[in-house]
């Protein structure tokens, strides 16, 4: 019930090892069941069978678990945000999430 999925970027992944996070980034490449996204730094994602990460250059949001060893993400569920998403705003939300913990 009280499950929180903090919004993070590539550089914050280290703080959330083995936790479930939300990360939004632009898809750089998709190869088999792994994808690389740019979320203020590159992150590799191990895709789920039902993934919505299908289009390179689109922005996607992935909810998944952070692997402690290599900071890759095991996808649980994803949303395709399409190509026209302002990554500056996405990064601003990540910063706000970790600055104002009262509301996030």
């Amino acid at each position: 019930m009280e499950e929180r999925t903090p919004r993070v970027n590539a550089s914050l992944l280290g703080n959330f090892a083995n936790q479930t996070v939300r990360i939004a980034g632009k898809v750089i490449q998709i190869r088999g069941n792994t994808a690389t996204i740019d979320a203020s730094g590159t992150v590799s994602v191990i895709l789920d069978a039902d993934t919505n990460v299908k289009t390179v250059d689109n922005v996607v949001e992935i909810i998944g678990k952070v692997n402690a060893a290599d900071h890759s993400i095991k996808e649980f569920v994803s949303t395709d945000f399409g190509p026209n998403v302002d990554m500056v705003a996405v990064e601003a939300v990540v910063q706000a999430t970790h600055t104002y913990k009262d509301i996030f």
Partner: protein
Amino acid sequence: MASQQATSKLVPPLSFACVEEGLFRSAGPRALNLPFVTDLNLDTIIWMAEEDPIPEFLSFVEEKGIKLLRFGIAEITTAWEPDVERSSGGIKREDTGIMYHGQTQNRWSIASTLAEYKRLANNRSRVINEFHIETFNKSSVELPERYGGGYDGGYQTGTYGGGGYPTGSQGGSQASPGKSAARNTLRPVTIKQIIDAQSPHDDSTFIIDGSEVGNVTFIAQIRSVADLETNTTYKFEDGTGSIEVKQFKNNRGSGGGDMDDEEGGGTSTRDEGLELNAYARVTGNIKQFNNKKNIGTQHVTLVTDFNEIQCHFLEATAVHLYFTRGPPESMQAKHTGGGAAGIYQQGGMAGGDTDMGGAGNTAGAGASILPPGISPAARKIYAHLKNRKDSSEGMHISVIATNTGLPVAETYKAVDELLSNGVCFTTMDDEHIACMDF
């Protein structure tokens, strides 16, 4: 008779107020009040009191051709302590008015009608009255097409300051102005804020960041959805928490606007595309049941531009900071006359903090010297005092209250806050306040 003379003046009945445009409530009118009631140009009157209307009133109704519908509470109950009953008479009429309006118009749900009743009845609310509201047969009241042409704006504002509810009916003590005003606000929030919201008085008013909330809006993902007979129940999750949302069938097509191209097959309240894991915007009221909060709404709309998600969270942050730290510095500078703003504007203040005035204030030398955590009311008073350069002997609290439009009780509280923070001081007596940098 003395009252004969007074009838030339317009005297509203006890507890008179405008519930909505064209809908009024009051205690049973006396002969003295009839000219006033005439001016309202009423079409229908719903009589809720147990006792009969006075004969003058009945003949007045007949003469004007007003429809009088009687739904005495005595129909369903017999035992009343007489004095309490009398004093709450106006309130009963009020809640019926709302119910009448609500159920007929389908714009008020029964839950919010009861909440409204409780709010107005203050500590005199009674279960029996709630039963009465619930069992009310709405088909017994016909509403005119364009109801109540007689809403006389000028008179209304003249007598009641445009406020709607006379303070007397609310007990007048705590948070009286915010109460009615706050209900009509819309606050962008995160689900965590909803879960953390406090309800100090009862289960119908909620406080987030120290201010009462009316409607809330948030964006989240659908984690489960069930189409039930009367509503669609969702579980929404936005990364900060999850909450149950009940979307009731109502008024489809008129308010929903852009998403309502298809009627969703008639059996579902749900708009097309509101499926599992979809992002949607919810606008509704916080409800609480058995200490578990949920959201009652008629508006759940699919998010189609995903920038809206980011926009919402940043907006929620900005609003949160506004309530907890006061307005942004740029806005504060305007309020305080901008005197010190230029001098103290420091270069190195970081990120979003600067925008919200937080960093500037904690540095001790922002555009104003107010510390963080000062309530909006206190800020308003401080700005007001600061703008008055002409007086060094301070201003009386009641004058401050009048000028700032704050209620006196709240003004006292805010002034105390300013005094204890050392930004204001008392002058010739305890009730005259001036601010520090005169």
